């Protein structure tokens, strides 16, 4: 992902909850040590509660929690609501379509005409290539059961629902080959529904598209020839 907002939020929550846990844990063990029956020979503190304390420990967590909730909202909107735009104000079209099926990822590139389901489309299986430093928009759907398109290294995940067309977007920043994981139970072969996403420079990406397309044409030609 371009920004590290999810990692940042994770660590913010980790620090906050970590401090709360250490605080409560220390308080608890201190009470247990101090008020052990064998040690404490003073009188018991006969109390049914304190109105003031209840207010303190309701209001402070409420403020902290409300802050945390509001603090998350921008990252959520960025990941799910603010779809990247073209310069003319239209939503950016999908670079590729990803279709989940038991137990593989079918990937479809629209080709030069930018239209899906036309003769110049490129089809691959489990092999997604994306250019670096560019907002990538994907259209994802399923043709049988639920799947979940999970890119652990990109902190990106979206369930793939049959009958629903969804868009997701992210910005790859580092070259390399990463796993595409299916994260929603989809049957006995769920564990092996593995794809691979390759991040490369824009020129390498275009070269790969061309090469893959040529190979596809060649195999179609030779198939026709064989008949």
């Amino acid at each position, binding site marked *: 992902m371009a920004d590290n907002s*999810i990692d940042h*939020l*994770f660590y913010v*929550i980790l620090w906050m*909850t970590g401090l*709360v*846990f250490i605080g*409560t*844990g220390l*308080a*608890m063990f201190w*009470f247990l040590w101090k*008020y052990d029956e064998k040690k404490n020979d003073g009188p*018991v*503190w*006969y*109390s*049914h*509660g*304190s109105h003031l*304390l*209840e207010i303190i420990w*309701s209001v402070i*967590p409420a403020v902290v*929690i*409300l802050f*945390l*909730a509001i603090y*998350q*909202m921008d990252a*959520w*909107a960025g990941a*799910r*609501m603010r779809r990247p735009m073209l310069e003319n104000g239209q939503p950016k079209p999908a670079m590729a379509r990803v279709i989940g099926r*038991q137990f593989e990822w079918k990937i479809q590139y629209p080709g030069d005409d930018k239209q899906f389901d036309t003769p110049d489309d490129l089809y691959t299986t489990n092999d997604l290539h994306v250019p670096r430093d560019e907002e990538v928009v994907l259209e994802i759907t399923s*043709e*049988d*059961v*639920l799947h*979940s398109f999970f890119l*652990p*290294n990109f*902190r*990106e*995940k*979206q*369930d793939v*629902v049959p*009958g*629903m067309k969804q868009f997701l977007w992210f910005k790859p920043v580092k070259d390399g080959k990463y796993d595409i*994981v299916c*994260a*929603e*139970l989809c*049957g*006995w*072969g*769920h*564990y092996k529904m*593995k794809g691979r996403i390759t991040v490369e420079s824009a020129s390498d990406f275009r070269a790969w598209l061309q090469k893959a397309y040529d190979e596809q044409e060649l195999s179609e030609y030779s198939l026709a020839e064989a008949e």
Partner: protein
Amino acid sequence: MSSITADGQATHAHTSNEFGVGEFITTYVFSRDHKVIGLQFLFSTLLWFLIGGLLAIGIRWQLAWPWSDMPVIGPMLFSAEGGQISPEFYTMLFTMHATVMTFLVIIPILAGAFGNYLIPLMIGADDMAFPTLNMLSYWVMWPAFLFFGGSFFVAGNGASSGWTSYPPLSSISEAAPGSGLAQTMWLIALTCVGISSMMGSVNYMTTIIQMRAPGMTMMRLPMTIWGMFITALLQAFALPVLTAAGFMQLADRMFGTGFFVPEGLIVNNSEMAAGGGQPLLWQHLFWFYSHPAVYIMILPAMGMVSDILACFARKPLFGYKPMVYAICGIAGLGFIVWGHHMFVSGMNPGLGMTFMVATMMIALPSAVKTFNWLGTIYGGKIQFTTPMLFALSFVLMFVIGGLSGIFMAATPVDIFIHDTYFIVAHFHYVLFGGTAMAVFGAIYFWFPKMFGRMMNEPLGKVHFLLTFLFMNGTFFTMHILGAVGFPRRLADPYHYETFRHLLPMNQFMTICAILMVACQIFFIVNFFYSIFFGPKAGRNPWHANGLEWQAPSPPGHGNFDFQPIVYRGPYEYNSPEVDEDYYPQTQPPNQRGDTDEPATMVNH
């Protein structure tokens, strides 16, 4: 309400040869006595607890030593594959582990076993409001036991759509060829569990509202009863939705309807006929019940822990009313947060924000409860008995489980950790570290009342210590896996390069899990030995205040051998009004109590 039949322990203690066969059956099998039903629930659920634990070991074995020959079980079940398990079998393992633990262990052990046993005793009633309905609520569990149990043996490999049974995988037989009939049986069993819970909850509500002893106002109820009461309300309002959804899925499977099946599906290369439905509809309906069910699985435990903490801190419960309001708050909020299970499901992202705020707000009543528990032990005279140790560990583990919930309540973080081991860690801390530890504590605490004998303390402490250690070894590590993105429900996660380096950590967890199950032998031995040979307990071995401790141990039919009259709340420990450090609810003001004779006995 029928009149109190005051036959105590003495008149009740028939020897077995006094019974005819018919009498034996009506007394111990088809009994309408809430205590017998409670114990029936207890024994059944403890047996299923063991089965669920062994299923978990199966899961852990595969994650630690994938595709290796499973010892003992492997050669028996998978001789054709040379002793290694199949991915289908693994899918069945985690489906049935969760199913068994949720529907046959945690919910029935809290509501069925402890709810049944404790509600009439703690409110001073002679039985439930509807004893026959109560009996049916246990016996309708048996079709569920048989269908769930039978689903292991029919078809290829048993139900394997996960315990959430998400369609279309669960509603189209072609999508999961190995679980044809088993999945249908799973749905029928789920319906039976729902009927049982519904019968129980109607009964509990009526009993708690109508049958409290004189003087037992709502604000004098022990927290256990408050937990049970709110739980019964949750069940009554949420369960019909799940039952209806279950029938819809059954219809999808059996009659070709399409509630949850969209148009134009191609499954296993064949086109599906039915259509027009929405898979997300099931998720909404399912979680509309199953999120409140999460609180059904914790609120009674919170109540029991509050009682145990106050008793062994020898101090009044800190902030009784805020504790009651917190339980109500958790239950109320519980109805409007189901969507947090669906942040990445494709649900409208705007809704996600609403659900995030509501979900995070649940941390508020949870914090109030935690701080009040700490306030309860502050300034007391703490007795470190086995039930107290379990109750204390409940508090600490619940803090971990509660705090880790904030991570997944935060929608952007949930994008990453959803369906990873972070979630698994979270709910095991709440359900095992929380509820199961509270259940163990409650068994040690109320055992003297149930069986009239004490459990062995040193053995209990060994059981506590080992369980506590190995539990954390197993489940804390899951947080770390989850932070790497390690997904749930994968038969072989090491198929992915990203997760390959996590194998040693999984092996550590598996060893801890095996030891955790193994050390339950201390509990089993202690439990059965103490039933027969434990030292006799009097009416009130812990010097507690609750009404149940004024009845004989074990209480005879009709519970009390006197008419209990309640003068105060249940937490008057170390009250300045009396010399003893406890002040039973039935003891008239300014009368000196006797340790083993209820003060109101004179009325009898």
